[in-house]
């Protein structure tokens, strides 16, 4: 029996509802939404790859002025299209005005990266301050991500800014790379929560949290792995795991549950394994501990079942 027929009476479906759902279920109405998005994404990626390869291959024949002019034109065209098509700025979630809009924006950002990279490699305009290209593009991408409501461009902005901070702070030798990463991650999480509280693109919070949490977990683990329990990073890791687990239950976001359990287990186990030298004891520990994790999580299975929606 068809699903719609079975649910018609139970759900009290109206005739138009039942007709539409029946069309969807039987494939009489078929959406290619995701497939079209995949085409745009693949297309944009191939274009960036092809343009990059052409520039590299024909560097001498084309000349720097031609290359930079073409790239500048491409960037202007992409951004021009986006500004022309986009609706007014909104602090809420806005849909893309056209199917290819997000990918044209992505192309513009990628071409800008190519132009900066080429200009610096050719003319050394900023020389040892080359990392300011990262800062410049990071800031621009932030602005574009908020203006056009694009989480992918926001990810690009975060990565560029992380790159810039990493390079710039190395000049000062005040902080090691992991402490910088932790501070940056904490700042990301705080910024995400701050903007969420003020309802400024609240749907971006996940992007900030995911980058922030992964970066924090990895930075802590990078110290816990060699040092075991005997470092200040271990209690911080434990506290962060508890925080992330709590957050996952509160928001019913089980991807956070997955990450925090895995990272917490890795940290704790590396501390334990640090004190065991026998390989069979390590196997026994892994066996007992993973069964313990399974049993503990399994006891919570009612809370972990799929949310209705």
């Amino acid at each position: 029996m068809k699903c719609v027929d079975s649910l018609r009476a139970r759900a009290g479906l109206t005739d138009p509802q039942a007709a539409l759902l029946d069309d969807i279920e039987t494939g009489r109405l078929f959406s290619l939404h995701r497939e079209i998005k995949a085409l745009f994404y693949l297309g944009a990626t191939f274009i960036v790859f092809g343009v990059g390869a052409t520039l590299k291959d024909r560097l001498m024949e084309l000349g720097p002025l031609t290359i930079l002019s073409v790239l500048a034109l491409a960037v202007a065209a992409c951004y021009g299209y986006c500004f022309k098509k986009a609706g007014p700025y909104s602090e809420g979630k806005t849909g893309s005005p056209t199917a290819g809009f997000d990918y044209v924006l992505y192309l513009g950002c990628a071409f800008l990266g190519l132009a900066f990279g080429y200009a610096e490699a050719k003319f050394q305009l900023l020389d040892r301050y080359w990392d300011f290209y990262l800062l410049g593009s990071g800031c621009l991408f932030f602005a574009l991500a908020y203006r056009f409501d694009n989480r992918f461009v926001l990810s690009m902005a975060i990565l560029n800014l992380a790159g810039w901070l990493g390079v710039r702070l190395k000049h000062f030798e005040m902080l090691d790379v992991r402490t910088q990463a932790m501070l940056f991650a904490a700042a990301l999480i705080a910024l995400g929560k701050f903007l969420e509280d003020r309802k400024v693109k609240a749907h971006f919070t996940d992007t900030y949290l995911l980058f922030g949490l992964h970066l924090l977990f990895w930075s802590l683990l990078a110290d816990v792995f060699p040092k075991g329990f005997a470092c200040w990073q271990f209690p911080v890791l434990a506290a962060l795991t508890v925080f992330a687990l709590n957050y996952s239950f509160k928001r019913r976001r089980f991807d956070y549950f997955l990450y925090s359990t895995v990272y917490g287990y890795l940290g704790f186990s590396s501390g334990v394994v640090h004190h065991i030298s026998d390989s069979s004891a390590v196997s026994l520990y892994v066996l007992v501990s993973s069964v313990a994790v399974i049993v503990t999580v399994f006891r919570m299975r009612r809370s972990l079942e799929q949310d209705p929606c």
Partner: protein
Amino acid sequence: MLRIFTPEEEQALFELEEARAWRRSELIAKEQLDAVELSAGKTLSMAGKAVRLLFAGFTLLAMGAASGFVGSCLGHEKVSLGAFFLLSAPAYVLLAEHLIRRHRLYRFGAEEGLLMGAAIQLAVGTYLVFSSGLDPYARQGSEILFTLPFLMGTLALYVRYGYAYAGIAAVFALAQLILYQGLTPHVARLTLSGSFAGILLAMRMREVPGYERERWDMIDACLCLAVYLPLNLRLESLANPFAVPKVSSMGHFYWGTLAAVWLIPPAVLLWGVRARKRAVLIVGAILALLSLMTLKPYLGLQRNPWDPAVLGVFLMGLGWALSRKLDSAPGWTAKQLLVPREELSAGALLAAAAAAVATGGQEPSSTPEKPRFGGGESGGAGATASF
């Protein structure tokens, strides 16, 4: 019935999941979903992808650790370890069956990990026990001792529990089995392709219930891939894009495969479109892309560095045309009809990978290196060129 779940149980869960998808997509009201949930009663338990992955991962980890522990106790002696695998595999299956029956688990990860682990242990155990006594000549074909039990195990998993990935693993195990038969390359390719085409045709005869349609579509799609891949002789050119193969001395087989490589994708696409099979449609598009990308090497032509850009423009153009014209085609739409659950986003994986790379153990140096501006080092803004 061989299936552990009754059709009524699977149908009830399928209907509930469909109703939830409709609610997510705002096609029905909350009260309507509540009514469906109430009337559904107690259905099978299903977890989201993240929880399934967690359970399956830790279960496989525990099974690996148990093998490691027993292995170290037995002094890593192959036959004894193999015997342990063969003895423990049925025990794992029994445990999984117990969990499924006791807690009414449908897709929860732990039982899936146990069952997939059991299939792997059956294969590895058979190989370890029966290959050790073979003389070196006979050992050349001993891979069959792994592949055959793996094929049987994964097939059994599909039949008994309906795991689509077990069915897909069985398809690839069958391909391996054919390759071990010592056939000449041409015959092996034709046998592979022909066998999978035969299975595909045979499978079309079966009447599939609604709750199982998506799984069968995925296996159909996988079989289409398995028919195509052995016939494309230039797939290796994707790894070495600027090599120019010589084609002047190629025979009928070579040109025949070129024809097949250009006939199969439209046929698969057409089937996907007519039967409204999403997985088949996607595989058809992937095959068409592979045929396009391997055409120049097939004809012995030099690739140009701008070829990917031309292909990219074509793909974006196609996307643009489809998004514009599709809504006027009856039965098709470019709009999103059903909203998927937000689980394990690609962004999260990107974030995890970036964080792992960023904190990957480099100690700070006093003089920052200048970048080469290669392949996405500046967070996606960088390109693939290395100036």
